[in-house]
């Protein structure tokens, strides 16, 4: 095992980190503001990937399809989540966590079966656009697939935009205030229900974006939600509930331990991220960064 193998594995881990970060930052946003442990988040991620497949197929696998999917798939997921939020979730914000957890689990079951109904059980593949086929040579033996490079650019971009949204826009500030004291925000004449709804939709948009971005790198299949939702919950927990930078750090820990783990111990590498989570929570029970509640 030479240094290049390790470095390229680190790069693979970093691209995985980007996906994990995008999905779990959405989850963290919802958890931090609405206090809903949204199990259906993983299903929305899966829905994003399947929608990307359909859009890309509609354009015959052309590059244009990818770019349309990049915008269209997350928007479609956001629309679905908007309907779910306005029809069901908004009436249940006051319930305890356990109920909300089970409710969102119910939704994940429903979404899972709807996806099975519409797309069937076979594996789907989304082609990597021609612009991103090939490699760039970083160093002597160190190749980086162009699509991964694209992911490595998208990741910080999303983080930056999310930071802008939460810290610099009025909407973001209101949502942060509503996370701390819901009644007070309502008392100054802001429609809290809509703020919550919009935050929920924004979080789900990120889930759809994550699903869309991951689609060209894996085979899109049923059940891809189950492993991901567990990982993103853990990321959110070790980062600190509702903290977006925490989600970034958590995703880094998870993505890197995962890729390195597979390299050094192929059989049990899968255990390494979970062990890392246990380590973190043993020393920092409330997560690495400050949580919003």
């Amino acid at each position: 095992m030479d240094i290049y193998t390790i470095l390229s594995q680190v790069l693979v881990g970093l691209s995985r980190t980007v996906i994990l970060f995008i999905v779990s930052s959405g989850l963290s946003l919802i958890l931090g503001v609405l206090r809903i442990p949204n199990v259906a988040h993983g299903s929305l991620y899966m829905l994003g990937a399947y929608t990307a497949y359909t859009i890309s197929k509609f354009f015959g696998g052309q590059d244009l399809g990818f770019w349309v999917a990049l915008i269209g798939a997350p928007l479609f997921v956001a629309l679905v989540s908007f309907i779910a939020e306005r029809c069901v979730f908004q009436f249940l914000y006051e319930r305890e966590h356990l109920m909300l957890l089970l409710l969102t689990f119910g939704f994940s079951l429903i979404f899972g079966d709807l996806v099975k109904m519409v797309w069937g059980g076979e594996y789907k593949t989304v082609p990597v656009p021609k612009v991103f086929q090939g490699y760039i040579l970083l160093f002597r033996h160190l190749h980086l697939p162009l699509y991964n490079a694209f992911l490595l650019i998208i990741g910080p971009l999303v983080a930056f935009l999310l930071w802008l949204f939460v810290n610099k826009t009025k909407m973001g500030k209101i949502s942060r205030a509503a996370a701390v004291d819901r009644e007070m925000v309502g008392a100054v004449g802001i429609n809290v229900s809509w703020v919550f709804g919009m935050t929920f939709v924004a979080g789900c948009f990120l889930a759809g974006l994550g699903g869309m971005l991951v689609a060209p790198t894996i085979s899109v299949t049923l059940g891809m939600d189950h492993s991901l939702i567990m990982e993103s919950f853990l990321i959110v927990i070790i980062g600190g509930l509702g903290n977006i930078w925490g989600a970034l750090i958590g995703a880094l820990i998870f993505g890197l331990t995962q890729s390195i783990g597979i390299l050094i111990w192929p059989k049990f590498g899968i255990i390494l991220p979970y062990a890392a989570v246990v380590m973190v929570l043993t020393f920092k029970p409330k997560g690495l960064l400050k949580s919003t509640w």
Partner: protein
Amino acid sequence: MVKVEKKKLIAAVLVIFLLFPLILPRFYVYLTSLIMIYGLLATSLNLVLGYGGIFQFHHCVFYGVGAYATALILTKTSLHPIFAFIAGPICGSVLSLILGIVCIRLSKLYFGMLQISLGSLVWAIVYRWYSFTGGDDGIHGIPIPEIFASTNGAFYFALMITTVSMFVIYGIVNSPFGKTLQGIRDNPVRCEMIGVNVRLHQLLALTISGFFAGVAGMLFVVVDTTVFPELLFWTLSLEVLIMCLVGGWFTFFGPMLGAGIIILLRTVVSTYTVYWALVLGIILTLVIFFLPNGVLGFIEEKFGRGLKRENV
């Protein structure tokens, strides 16, 4: 008055259950065994969740580990089967104690999340360790002692163990320990103030509940003669949570009833459509909206008061 009726009711149900293998076809006997197993599992979860107020999200780990312990001893060693039947519950409770010690410092949602992550760790080990646990294939055709090998034998064994376990859990819930546990659920700070060791009580409750989850796992091996990693996957844990919810959290027999409802519905719906998860999701949403206390909670609310009034 009500209490006598309850006793009669339980006796009647037990007698009917005893007659089941004589009147029902084999499939339904097997189904009833499954309902009892999942009912016991849900009841053991309810001990910590409904009575203890601890967010035990990943309860199936103890169930799965109990099942695997029993299965491994039966297949890989030549020990007397009785050891296998004892080992399941013991492993469940020991693992529950270990996870409890790690998680108990956290409260509510954090507890549940850490518990799920540790449980997933156990799942990942079972899933990957091909040479020991059979990996994702699991273990099939586990040799069960002759008397329990038939469907009816397994049914009577499951009935016996489940009945005894239910009585023991009922005793625990109504013991001073159980009352203290409910006090901790309602107000942990006050309990701490009057000198109750909150952590110790919660740990003990977790250990007991892990023990009975292990019992359920052991019964599953006897009835189904297979084990597979899905037994400790987190979706099954949430399904058991749903059973508790549908039956009713704050009632003793609620989880058992919920298990019956869910498993029967699954059997019926599966004959018509492959989309059982969709149906379950819709049922779950409706229950959360309209029956937040579950079926039994609803009945007690509606008719329990009426009964009491009659007594007065």
